[in-house]
């Protein structure tokens, strides 16, 4: 297959020392991927639809309290726990190391979400709707998922696709920094970097080699493609 020859392995580096927890990535993701809005009750019921969320942790005792933020999105695991449990192969692994979700194949068993240690898969418990005039801003490149379908972060596959198309039309490879998911593009302090982990010279690979690196729940052996950076004396003094 042609896609398998591309030799790309998409990955992301998130520098937690840069993250301010502003939530711009969450909004960008919501807008880019046609994610319906969840009301207060939905959140209370744990039925919030978010592909990307900011986890907030409090550290220390009053008055020396500090907030820690961690953007949590699909980790696109190489050994993804969500994939083998899907009875209809709606959750599958692409040749480029992405963890795919095929909406039109999904029958809504929710096994994948239950098996995901990161809790990043969300389920459409109701038919999606947008308050006026927000339905006017839906992206035509992204399917609007119907009720009963599991969905999750796709690393903005429509943007990856567009980047690859542009490269293909010019008979070249995708350049480093050509493709950005909406979250990485929006992040004001530039805490999120996206690129090809197989290319040793790409920015994302260079950052991934940092001694500050760690991956979430590394001991589970899920081999995530999202690498977090933390520590190393770059913090503001508390």
């Amino acid at each position: 297959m042609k896609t398998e020859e591309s030799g790309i392995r998409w990955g992301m580096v998130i520098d937690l020392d840069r993250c301010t927890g502003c939530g711009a990535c969450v909004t960008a993701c919501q807008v880019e991927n046609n994610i319906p809005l969840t009301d207060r009750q939905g959140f209370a019921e744990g039925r919030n639809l978010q592909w990307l969320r900011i986890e907030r942790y409090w550290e220390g005792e009053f008055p020396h309290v500090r907030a820690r933020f961690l953007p949590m999105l699909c980790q696109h695991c190489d050994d993804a726990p969500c994939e083998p449990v899907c009875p209809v192969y709606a959750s599958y692994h692409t040749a480029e190391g992405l963890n795919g979700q095929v909406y039109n194949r999904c029958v809504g068993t929710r096994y994948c979400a239950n098996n995901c240690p990161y809790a990043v898969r969300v389920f459409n418990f109701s038919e999606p709707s947008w308050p006026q005039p927000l339905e006017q801003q839906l992206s035509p490149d992204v399917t609007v998922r119907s009720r009963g379908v599991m969905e999750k972060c796709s690393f903005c596959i429509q943007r990856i696709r567009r980047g690859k198309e542009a490269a293909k039309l010019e008979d070249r490879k995708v350049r480093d920094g050509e493709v950005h998911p909406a979250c990485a593009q929006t992040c004001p302090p530039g805490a999120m970097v996206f690129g090809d982990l197989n290319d040793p010279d790409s920015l994302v690979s260079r950052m991934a080699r940092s001694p500050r690196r760690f991956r979430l729940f590394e001991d589970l052996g899920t081999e995530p493609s999202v690498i977090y950076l933390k520590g190393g004396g770059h913090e503001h003094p508390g």
Partner: protein
Amino acid sequence: MKKLLLTLVLLCVTGLLLGGLTLLYHLPLDTRDRSPQQPLPFSHLQHAGDLQIDCRFCHRHAETGPVAGVPDLDLCLSCHRHIATDKPTIQQLAGYWDRQEPVPWVRLHQLPDHVYFPHHLHLRAQVECSYCHGQVENMAQMQRIASLKMGWCLNCHRQNQASIDCWACHM
């Protein structure tokens, strides 16, 4: 004797049933869907056939974007302000322009929302327009010749070693 007759009749009935079912399976049942009545009797036979106008003269975005595009009224009228202006159908066409209304063409090649089909990449891969759209230069009334179902897409993708990754088309 009676037994033989009965067996023969049974065989005939089974054969007929099976034949009928096979016929039903293969016949295009959506003939009306495949060639619906259009608001204006536009003829590809005349434009693409007799006059040999290139597909891409009217369907302008086929080479540059995912959607080939139906020509806007201005493009139709760029010729028809001067050509065949006395014909009633052309006057009807001009009527849409005067009323500032789009022509409500009935879409024949409609893909579901969850399918992404880029025209420009298929043209770049040297897929002929007629491979999916048929010999439109012979159609007085436009017809859809392909089923446009996923199996049909996949067949061609497999034959030409194109990507059969789910996310290649479903995003």
